[in-house]
């Protein structure tokens, strides 16, 4: 795969995630769609820093450290994505916690049942 394929895939995932968020009515499915959306964005970030034929920016040998610039892919996006994945995990945890409480209070995870506060 080259970089363009990654871009196409990430655009597809972002679109899928957005559609899922807006078309689903079940909160758990919305959470899944949010994860797909986040994965799409994360994939985009990594593929931005991807250079074909280069290796991961882990400089384990002295020899590699000396000549890393031409050999490794851009390390910044990978660092960003690690952070973004962790943040996404936190979001998902809070969201699932809310889903549990929603089920306890409303007896369902269907967001169209959330209409106490209409107005």
């Amino acid at each position: 795969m080259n970089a363009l394929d990654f871009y196409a895939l990430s655009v597809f995932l972002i679109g899928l995630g957005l559609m899922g968020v807006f078309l689903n009515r079940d909160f758990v499915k919305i959470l899944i769609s949010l994860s797909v959306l986040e994965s799409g964005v994360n994939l985009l970030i990594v593929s931005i820093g991807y250079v074909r034929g280069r290796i991961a920016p882990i400089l384990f040998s002295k020899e590699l450290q000396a000549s890393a610039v031409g050999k490794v892919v851009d390390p910044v996006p990978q660092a960003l994505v690690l952070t973004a994945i962790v943040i996404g995990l936190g979001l998902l945890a809070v969201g699932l916690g809310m889903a549990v409480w929603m089920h306890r209070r409303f007896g369902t995870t269907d967001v169209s049942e959330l209409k106490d506060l209409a107005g």
Partner: protein
Amino acid sequence: MTKLAVYTFALPLLAGFLMWFVGRLGNRPAKAFSALTSLITTVLAGKVLLSLLKGSSIVVVFGGWRPPLGINFFLDPLAGLWLFSVNVLMFLAVIGSGTRYSWRFYGLLMILLAGLNGLIMSGDLFNVFVFFEIVCLVSFALVAYYRKRESIEAGVKYFVLGSVASSLFLLAIALIYGKTGTLNLAQISYLSNSWPALFKLVVFVLILVGLGVESGVFPLNAWLFDAHPAAPFPVSALLSGIVIESALYVLLRLVGLFFLDKGAVLLVGQTLLLLGVLTFVVAEIVGFYQRDVKRALAYSSAGQIGLMLMAFAVGLSRPDLGSVALVLLFLNHLLAKGGLFLSVGAVSDRSGSRDLDRFAEECAFSDKVVGLVGGLSLVGAPPFLGFWGKVALVFGLLAINMYALVGIVLAVMVLEAIYLMRISSAMLTAKGEGRQDCPGQALSLWVLSLLMLGAGVLAVYGVKKGVDLSRLRFTPKQEYIQTVYDVSAYKGGVDIDG
């Protein structure tokens, strides 16, 4: 000296996690601990603000890597003022929160404070995202704190909107990084001159949506009106007083740095002006018909955000009037709405009803004072900050020849005045005698009333004495880049590692 700025972020974060241990001692020690922490950060932020008002902007560099390679904080006088106000309101909200919240609540508040302080100071786009996520996550949890039906409903709505928005913001960051290869705000700002129009438009929309949800810009603010009434009252005060404002601050900072070159400034200005007017008008008209007092106050918050957006847009062509209006409206809203939520929220909790006719039964004397002073200040009665802010905004609108807008804005302001005065008068005429949980509640309300009364007088006195309010503005692009890049800035700034 300027190193202090970092501790306003680091201390509350540490306190938030230490709360796990402090909480073992009970809820009261937890409250005292968070009050102490926010008092310390308030003092630190006050010192930072004083040094900013005297001298130049501060760039704090981390890890010995100079920007644009490394990560930095950037503080101009406006950032200093914002930082200080946020810490003040957090301290007062902790003091005024009563005795019924657990240590977990205070832990979350401390992490919220850390996120907000970082958000205001950050000079790195990805750090902005991280701090923004901290703020979002903590607010989701705080809104759903009671786990009642309405809090879960509000929390779920807020969660879905907020998460989609932050994903879109991350998408904008990815696109910007792909284009420029950097995350440093100054360097992006420098490189943004050569962005093609289409790219600029896409990124602008993504950032506007991404940060607009949290800052309550129409039509993305639907969560706000459910979240404010459902949240515990100190959280409503904080959400309304500082969270949505700080999101707006970041939005305006990014817009100012990335999108204001000569070709786009007019279009951006008009877009923001239009959004501001829509936010203001729609929110105030709907707010007028609310019976639920906390919900009515939430609508008024969205309205004030609209006014601030308008002030920023005006400031693009008339910096003198616009930036002054923005600062005054921000301070006014922070004090008045913070105070109103702290009093109205506590009173309606005690009375067991949020209905306009019945919420005020358990009013204490300090609640009545804040009800009156805060209401008048928010409406824009003459001695208060709100008056000067609205005057500056109206003159600014006149100066850019938006006569029709002035008419609309003034008419809607009357509407806002009517429903806010209904709340104030309900509190003033309440017969019952309310008992506050602890003396801290009365203390925080008194402090807020004094600040509201004092600030308007102080501002007028200060301007007469020659204090230059116009220094409290978003540092323009060129100057921002210069300050961050300028080597001499490091003499004023601090290198954390030496």
